[in-house]
């Protein structure tokens, strides 16, 4: 602040950083201490953002899905199964190729994920998406071939990865790829002793810890679980159960959506 004030030159990054920090300090204090403090978007701690999901936004793909959770907007296209590249070794099970990319305008700072974090965030999310889906897709049903899953984050508003995962499984179902079950994913942030579900990017930036669960509700199996921060045993159990419950509800919504889409097609 002092640098911006005394020199008199325009440096939006420094000033914005200061303001952001003050706002977040306040947010953090409230979320860590009060159990009933309404979040910035008016939700209670255990409410997810209103979701909008749709199948078939892109016509060229075998299957596609669009998801919008608050500000986070994601589009996923699935291509294939198609012949694996010639250079690939023979494989009697199918391959799943996952790619997650951000548009340059997805973040407040242009290209934050698309360029400066290239090699970490995109690849990290791509690898995570692959690890989450490979346990759910029946890879043996399409030997020697590859299924491509391309996810594009149009706008990043927090909880990006769980939304990409849920949207990708909807797109895979839309493409008619055989799966054991739909995978849905939800993340939580922890602030002090409180756990909040489906965090926005503001909340994510100041969280004490985060936990992501990807779950197959019908099979009752966790396909992916990651955790950062400092957690006690009991808190992990609570958070995972909270996530699993939300995943089951989200999965019911996806199922309804797929049923509606197929009855429309007939």
């Amino acid at each position, binding site marked *: 602040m002092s640098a911006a004030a005394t020199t008199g030159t325009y440096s939006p990054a420094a000033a914005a950083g200061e303001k952001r920090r003050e706002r977040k300090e306040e947010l953090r204090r409230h979320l860590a201490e009060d159990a009933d403090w309404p979040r910035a978007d008016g939700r209670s701690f255990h409410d997810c953002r209103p979701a909008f999901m749709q199948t078939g936004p892109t016509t060229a793909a075998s299957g596609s899905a669009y998801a919008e959770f608050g500000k986070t907007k994601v589009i996923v296209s699935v291509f294939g199964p198609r012949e694996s590249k010639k250079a690939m070794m023979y494989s009697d099970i199918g391959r799943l190729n996952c790619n997650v990319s951000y548009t340059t305008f997805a973040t407040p700072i242009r290209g934050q994920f698309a360029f400066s974090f290239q090699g970490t965030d995109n690849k990290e999310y791509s690898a995570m998406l692959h690890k989450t889906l490979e346990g759910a897709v029946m890879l043996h049903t399409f030997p020697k071939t590859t299924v491509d899953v391309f996810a594009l984050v149009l706008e990043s508003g927090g909880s990006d990865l769980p939304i990409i995962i849920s949207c990708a499984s909807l797109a895979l179902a839309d493409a008619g790829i055989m799966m054991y079950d739909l995978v849905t994913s939800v993340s939580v942030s922890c602030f002090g002793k409180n756990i909040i579900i489906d965090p926005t990017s503001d909340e994510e930036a100041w969280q004490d810890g985060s936990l992501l669960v990807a779950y*197959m509700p019908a099979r009752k199996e966790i396909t992916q679980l990651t955790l950062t921060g400092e957690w006690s045993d009991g808190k992990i159990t609570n958070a995972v159960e909270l996530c699993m419950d939300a995943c089951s509800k989200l999965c019911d919504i996806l199922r309804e959506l797929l049923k509606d889409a197929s009855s429309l097609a007939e």
Partner: protein
Amino acid sequence: MVGLSVGEKHFIRGGIAQDLRADGRRRLQFRAISVETGVIPQANGSARVRLGATEVIASVKAELGKPSILHPDKGKVSIFVDCSPTAAPMFEGRGSEEFSAELSVALQRCLLGGKSGAGAAIDLSSLIVVDGKVCWDLYIDGLVVSSDGNLLDALAAAIKVALSDTGIPKVNVSLSAATDEEPEVDVSDEEFLQFDTSSVPVIVTLTKVGKHYIVDATSEEESQMSSAVSVSVNRHGQICGLTKRGGAGLDPSVVFDMISVAKHVGQQFISVLDSEIAAAEAAE
């Protein structure tokens, strides 16, 4: 890749089911660990850790840098892992890139804690020299020298040992009148400050083979895994990070079970590591 015959696969799986593994260990028993500190003279701190036939080196280098705008009161820590093709032929060329990135991400997740710094191995505010102007940038590099399974646990242990070996030079700041000017810093080459490494967690990877899970899997055992959960545990028994590998899904109750087992094993591993660190420092 590990080439195993059908018979060998049965032998490994059968042994794990009967709680007697191919090398005579029980399911929750680590291989013998050996620790050496100060192996890289150019680094501020370094360590070599051997876990059976797995061998890794970790080095910590500190450089003076500028704190980021969003966190003017904090230093920066970055972790990178390199898998040398001398360790295994599969690390040659692009093959190692993906694997190294996976290890780096897992270590970052397990050691750097949450965004606010809760559960972090190193208190980032201890790295600050002048608020908003000068801070220490800590570069932690891991190198896989020889690979026989359980690289993540070995790397985390090596980083823990390397950090306890790290001395950051004492910095004298000469305060100038104008606050906007870059402060002059004088880096001492005689006085060093030690880190508080008591809260640095260790990682325990539980590898699920068949119905059971084992710690410290060799690469033969890893080739038979359905999934693996890596849990990072600190001295206070808190869980600081968790990642899952392998495609197969896990029942929630199994996951909770694995976490509590990892917590228990982690505490033992920390005390073993502590005595090894003390022995290595005495030997130096």
